[in-house]
């Protein structure tokens, strides 16, 4: 099972990175969305895979049953999902606004912060 997951996660990463290497902001965005899932799955798998038994302590007991899933990676991933979602939304809006203001979605043509003919820094005092 773990091996299958390892391969799946590899595919996730490869696809995400291939999209992110594009010049076009929308594809980069799609890549980032995939990358979030890839990392979450990576964490999830590293913590060990257990079928179906959620990490909830049964009534009358003080500890989890021995077959329950590992709660730690789940806690990490849960917040990660929400944060990556909010960042995804931010990136989406950034892409959209950049497209609106600069009239392009080609990152090569977005040279507002680093213009091609940047002058030397001021010499002297």
């Amino acid at each position: 099972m773990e091996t299958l997951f390892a391969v799946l996660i590899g595919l996730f990463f490869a696809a995400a990175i291939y999209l992110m290497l594009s010049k076009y902001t929308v594809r980069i965005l799609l890549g980032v969305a995939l990358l979030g899932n890839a990392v979450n799955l990576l964490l999830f798998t590293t913590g060990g895979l257990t079928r179906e038994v959620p990490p909830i302590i049964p009534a009358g007991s003080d500890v989890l049953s021995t077959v329950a899933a590992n709660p730690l990676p789940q806690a990490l991933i849960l917040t990660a999902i929400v944060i990556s979602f909010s960042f995804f939304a931010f990136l989406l809006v950034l892409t959209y606004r950049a497209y609106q203001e600069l009239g392009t979605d080609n990152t090569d043509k977005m040279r507002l912060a680093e213009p091609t003919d940047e002058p030397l820094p001021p010499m002297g005092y």
Partner: protein
Amino acid sequence: MGMNAPAWTFAALFLPFLAAALAPVLVGRFGARAAWFLALAPFLSFLNFLRFFGEISRGEVVTGGYMWAPSLNLSFSWFLDGLSLTFAALVTGIGTLIVIYSGGYLKGHPHQGRFLAFMLLFMGAMLGLVVSDSFLMLFAYWELTSIASFLLIGFDHERPAARRAALQALLVTGGGGLCLLAGLVLLWDVTGITQMSLLIHMETSLRESPFYLAILLLVLGGCFTKSAQFPFHFWLPNAMEAPTPVSAYLHSATMVKAGVYLLMRLQPALGATPAWEILLPFFGGITLVAGALMALRHTDMKMMLAYTTMASLGLLVMLTGFGSPHAVEAAVLYLVAHALFKGALFMIVGAIDHEAGTRDISKLAGLRKFMPWTFAAAVLAALSMAGLPLFFGFLAKEEIYAALAAGNPRAVFFTTLALIGNALMFAVAFGIAFKPFLGVFAHHEGVRHHIHEAPLSIFLGPAALALAGLVAGLASGVVHTYVSSPMASAILHETVTIDISTLPHIGLPLFLSLVTIAFGLAIFWKLSRVRSLMAALFESLGPGPDRGFDTALNALLHFAASVTRIVQPGRLEIYITITFVLVAAMLLVPPIVFGELPGLPPLPAGGVLVQEGLFLGIAVIGIAAVLRAGDRLTAIVSLGIQGFAVAVIFLLFGAPDLSFTQFMVETLSVVILALVMTRLRLSPSDSRPIGQRLFDGILAIACGLGFTLLLLKTFETPFDNVLTDFFNAYSKVIAHGANVVNVIIVDFRGTDTLGEIAVVTITGLAVLALIRVRAGGKTP
């Protein structure tokens, strides 16, 4: 009052900072008169330190402080012995006079409040520096003095020369400060000690450490830059761009002595080795002679004083490193004498500048008629600097000659250096005290017509310091008991008693003194001739390190610009490519090089259930669809497919919380994407050329393979259950929650979650800002 001694000292250390914060307000309200009130802060602080002289003279030390971060062995602690107490008294005592002086000197200046605030900030930093026990506290204060000095030198920031001088001083002393930090960290590492009071009890082990030379050189790097030793001396004369009170206080009496202070402080731990006794006298000696010679080439009295300060600092370093108890005693006497007479002379030059409108020695004469009291103070201070009997400076000079003149060739060499330096400084002292005041007043360009005696606030400081030089010389016994002997004992780490008095006694030192005076008088006689000679001499030597500094700085800026152009070509694609090339290299190279590749994975243990396989398959299909998506709708739908597949996978493997969250997030993603995507264009085909496509594909696959291998390797090592077991064991018992995931999020790791929701809030704000702000600042 219910306050114990440590609390008083703590208050004394922070009073200057408090006054600094109040200064702009008070000056804004009461004008220049506020300086009299602000001077109370250093004065009260001075009184606090005064009461320790009794204890210290009995050979005790005073320590105090508060724990700051006990787990890191960090404390806010001070340590008063003869050395630090004398410095603390000088800093606060002269500081009181300087604050009053600044009140008069900058009266009516639009930024006087700011000036006084910087000045008091510096005072607090310098005071902290000299009483610090812990290394890190010393370093923090050390850097704070550099910053305060930067602010003060650049006070007239509208002049490029002032900006340049400020930056130069900051870079030189700040760079030295980093050296010092490295030295202190190394010292800490070698000895395991972080406190000065403990370090000076270390006897031999440090000198035998293989790191001794490195520590010494790094510490010297800090001290030499701060105390303007050759070849780092050039910033000090340039720092004269600062208003005169700054020159009098920072660049003669206190800050530049920080380097000397630290050398004296570390003498018991680092001194008495060949390296110490070669490096210090050598560089000190060069600085002494070079400074004294360069002083004579100027007609600006402030520059003359600046170079003699450099010379004096050289003399102090030379004596500190000379290696005999006598030399250290001489250094102690000279240090105190210098602080008094040099502070006074700087303030007198400032007074002349303030009243006459110029400080050019060749344009001034006959001022004694207009400024008789200033003239009297100038003569007192100059006689001490010249080292004439009755004055404290005389004691210092006698002791210097007594210490150096030991008969061997090394001693003869350094005695000669001291003699040359002292004679030249004698000439400068007389030049400043007599040339502007004697003779017939004649009007020159730039000199005011109506010259008056300086007001009380300006006159008080130099008069008090000049008089102190005479009183200390006459009452030398008291000064030795309470100041010089305890200070020398602290430096030497053994009890010594200084008993030299101001009565001349026949011997070699007296003879050398007479030679100095004769030589000095001769130079004074021909001062203008010597000046042109020196000017010609230094002209012929070509540009010095000062010009070199400019060249180096410009070269650095050019270099930085070209590096920036290379590493930041401005194309996102390149940045991302480099990032992932490194990711792939990091994941793949080490396992291959170290032969740590995972073994061939076992076949899926326990089999794969149909539904699991199904959803893994759907996820793969989703990814493929995203890759091939040519229009918006396909992109949104396929992104949704893989997201929902992941959610189901979470559910199948015992993570309902994750599953629900993922479902909700995917739903909302689709909603948001649908809202935005209609306004974005997705080019139907990925328009990369085939070569690029191949390269990107290989890179992506390499990264993916790297992560797969990483995971497989992880499975080979047994899972470490420590944290999981902890959360499992305490979730219900302590945190009263059965859903362990939720308990971790809101309780065990609550602080993390707090940070995370702060991030979510900030992204919300950022999105709002992005949508509302239009180019050109228009908001809809």
